[in-house]
């Protein structure tokens, strides 16, 4: 009985039936006889294709030497898998990696970046200070007074720089000077505490103390408050024009003040 008695080309179902008959052990001739005449040519080609595939199997013969090689390799035990070898390889690389250390507990590679950045920042700050332009204002003036030579900053003035409270001055002051210095008496009373070494004790005893005194601190003269001992002097012809002191910077400054018109002071 022809199960494919039709003219249509062989479809999936027909092909599966052919294959089932072949699996049951039917010969190609027996299968072809069950087909219609119209389908026999196509079926014959399909069966020929199957035969060629079988021929391909016959001609593909695995090489014997290949088998022998693998068996030899298998007999040599594989001690490590690929993963283990890869891990070992990584470990080996790590052991060969040089470790730069400053000292054993301080591996440089871990701290190199923050340390180097910090060092660069410090260098920039230090270098930058040289180029900082001083700000303009009172603070700047005080800053300059505290750090610079005043006579250089104020070359036109006779400046005495007093930086230490212990440098007690014995100022040769006449009544005129004293009046001038204390003209603006808004400050505290300055008491005579200790005479200068060069001052005579007799002269010290002549102090008309306590004397309200304001030594101006608002200008260029003094950066910090201090106490000064004012020693009024009586003129002594045998020493100098003002008594006990040789003419020093401060005396010159005071003379300048004396000679200066009050409106300019």
């Amino acid at each position, binding site marked *: 009985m022809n199960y494919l008695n039709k003219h249509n080309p062989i479809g999936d179902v027909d*092909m599966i039936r052919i294959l089932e008959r072949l699996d049951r052990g039917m010969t190609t001739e027996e299968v072809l006889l069950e087909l219609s005449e119209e389908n026999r040519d196509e079926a014959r080609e399909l069966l020929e*294709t199957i035969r060629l595939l079988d*021929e*391909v199997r016959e001609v*593909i013969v695995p090489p014997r030497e290949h088998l022998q090689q*693998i068996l030899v390799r298998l007999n040599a*035990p594989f001690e490590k*898998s690929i993963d283990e070898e890869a891990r070992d390889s990584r470990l080996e690389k790590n052991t060969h990696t040089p470790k730069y250390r400053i000292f054993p507990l301080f591996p440089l590679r871990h701290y190199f970046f923050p340390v180097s950045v910090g060092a660069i920042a410090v260098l920039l700050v230090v270098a930058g200070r040289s180029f900082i332009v001083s700000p303009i204002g009172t603070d700047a003036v005080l800053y300059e007074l505290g750090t610079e030579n005043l006579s250089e900053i104020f070359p036109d003035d006779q400046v005495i720089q007093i930086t230490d409270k212990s440098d007690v001055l014995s100022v040769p002051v006449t009544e005129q000077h004293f009046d001038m210095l204390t003209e603006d008496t808004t400050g505290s009373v300055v008491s005579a505490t200790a005479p200068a070494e060069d001052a005579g004790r007799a002269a010290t005893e002549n102090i008309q103390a306590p004397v309200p005194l304001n030594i101006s601190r608002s200008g260029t003269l003094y950066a910090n408050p201090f106490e000064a001992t004012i020693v009024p002097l009586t003129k002594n012809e045998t020493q100098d024009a003002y008594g006990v002191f040789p003419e020093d910077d401060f005396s010159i400054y005071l003379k300048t003040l004396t000679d200066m018109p009050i409106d300019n002071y």
Partner: protein
Amino acid sequence: MTREEENMAELVRKAVDGDSQAFGELYALYFAPIYRYIYVRISVKHDVDDITQTVFLKAWQAVSRYENQGRPFLAWLFTIARNSVFDYRKKKREVFLDDTPIRDESVALAPRDEEKELYNEQLLAVRKALLDLSEDQQDVIVLRFIEGRSYREIASLIEKSEDAVRAIASRGLRELRKKIGRTDDTSNKAS
């Protein structure tokens, strides 16, 4: 479980335990089908040798993790082979068919000298046509018509139903016939 299946299970268990001799026996059993499968899928002899060797080396390195889930050991090897072929094809998108006869004995298989050339041409046409089939069709055609595996076994190997395997085999064969016919027509016109 048949006696043969028991022996196979014992062999696999020993191989899993690290017995290289047992793995060697498995290799001897399955080398030929794996080699032929790779040969048909790649058709470049020196690459086939390398990939087959790679498949078994991979299998040996991973055999300790093998778990018997009811599928034959060959299915596991076959999966490794399929993946290896896939990797190879991914690297070499264009496969250059090795035109040389597969073995010298093929000459002896030809019935007569005058038919020898035609015979080799036919085999070459089949191998070329096989490479143009889909992955599934190649797998099923090779396993069914070259390796002679049953549909049930193939279904287990490629994890598809038997009906699906039969359908794939049917379509693959018809596709192959068409391609071989086209190749014949082209070669006839050229000659």
